[in-house]
């Protein structure tokens, strides 16, 4: 096999692996809770579901007077995004996009949420950005981040609302 052919073959294998891994992940992660993660220096440990909704709607923009909230949202297609749209926003994908266009349009926010493409990327940005908040699969929460309780409940607890 030529060098070019080998490279193509390796790329195809990797693509296939990524595709199959995606299928497997979507299958095994079905029903897993979604955790809300922040940096440990965010002075909040627990949010009510209503407070969480205000946070993700962009109505609450400050953790404290000196710490602004930065929302990180998974790209379309991620199961965590679907969970958050269904439970917190109660919006379709189109409604979610329209909501944020309107929010910026009304000058209520300078920009919409930042988009991340994986739990690793979300964790990396939350670690690096003061005030950032993201949602990740509860089974994939990296060390060094704080998981917020919702209504006093951590992911995996009976009654936890994000799943």
């Amino acid at each position: 096999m030529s060098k070019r052919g080998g490279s193509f073959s390796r790329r195809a294998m990797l693509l296939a692996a990524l595709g199959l891994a995606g299928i497997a992940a979507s299958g095994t992660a079905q029903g897993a809770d979604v955790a809300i993660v922040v940096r440990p220096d965010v002075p909040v440990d627990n949010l009510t579901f209503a407070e969480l909704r205000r946070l993700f709607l962009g109505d609450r923009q400050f953790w404290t007077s000196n710490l602004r909230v930065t929302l990180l949202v998974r790209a379309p297609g991620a199961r965590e995004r679907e969970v958050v749209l269904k439970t917190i926003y109660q919006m379709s994908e189109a409604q979610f996009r329209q909501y944020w266009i309107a929010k910026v349009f009304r000058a209520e926010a300078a920009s919409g949420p930042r988009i991340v493409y994986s739990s690793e990327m979300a964790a990396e940005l939350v670690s690096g950005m003061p005030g950032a908040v993201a949602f990740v699969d509860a089974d994939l929460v990296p060390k060094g981040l704080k998981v917020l309780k919702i209504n006093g409940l951590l992911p995996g607890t009976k009654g936890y609302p994000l799943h």
Partner: protein
Amino acid sequence: MRRITLLCVVIAIGAPRSRAQAADPATKELIEKLLARIDGLEKRVAELEKGGATASANAPQAAASPAPAPAKAPSAALAMHQSHDQAPAPQTAGPESAPVYPSLKIAGFSDLDFSATNLHTSSAGFGAQTLIEPHSGFEEGQFTLHFSSALSPRVTMFAETTLTARSDAGTGTPPAPGFNPEVERVIIRYDLNDYFKLSFGRYHTPINYWNTAFHHGQWLQTTISRPEMTQFGGSFIPVHFIGSLAEGAAPAGGLNLNYAVGMGNGRGQVIGRGGDFGDINNNRAWLANAFIKPDGLYGLQLGGSVYRDELNPLTAPAAREWIESAHVVWQKETPEFIAEFANVGHQPVSGATASNSQAFYVQTAYRLPWLEKQWKPYYRFEYIHVPKSDAIFRSVVPTFHASTVGVRYDITTFAAFKFEYRSYVRRDLPSIHGFFGQTSFTF
């Protein structure tokens, strides 16, 4: 081997397609990023196979791939991209993915309209954007650009500019048709916290719901045009406000109380315009607005406002103006419900008889669950009553009641077709009936 490879490619490409629309730009971009990631990983593997020295020499390239990396690597920030529901991507990623200021973001809206009515004379007081014209035909809507930018963690700016087709906006004598440019809004805001934000600029006056919810992007609103009481170019409420606002929000025990208080120049001598060049008298206009969005009824908004000014119009005696308004809104689509009421009181400074004019509208819509939820029928009833004793309004605000029935079809997430039929019953004047169409979009 080639067949196996082809099969692998089909599986790999097919997997994400089963979960998202093939035409979705975000999915395409994700695939591109995955390919870039594979490229990066392959390079990295090749470098490692050649030896550690080579790998360290190419460290920046490796860091640009989203391979497992230290928390402070810029890879994630670089991988962020920008779309309509996102923040501007940082141009350069700092050690902690620090935001870059200013972070200008531009968005646009536009629309193209069609109208055909039985009106054969002047529209007599209806705003230009109501599209009631003596001739049927197509009309270019407004071309709107929005600029938003964070200047620091606490300071943001926002501007809205429009180009509006007008019969007299061009050059020559008589003026040729052309486009009229306008700075509709320009706002700079200092955010102390959620409870207190101070801003200065030119606003859409926050004394009712529609005027602060939909602005100049026709695509965002369900219907083709605004209710006449809050129409651009109309005079019933002062659509624009030049001055300063203090605003904020507090949880208030789950009620989510929002407030805004402001002081500004008030109406100009042409009362449909704000006092852009300064106040026309020494009486500032002021306003107070409050609304709640209860946690227990997600989607509900209830609010009211008061507004005070002294008017010195070109065509009527000076008068003190009081406006009281209220609104109730269900901010969802199954159903959507918006209702507003406003009373405008004019007390002539000379002591002549005071007058009160009222307006309200009720609009409801429902996003149908079938056909990919692209259809949204709607109905609106609106009413304006100006007493003949109101010297300021009687020549510029029409008295009528009207029904609008229509349907909105969302072609894509960012573009829509709207078709509607309207019937206006006017005081002392013939009724107007018409068909209206619009395509509106954001870009």
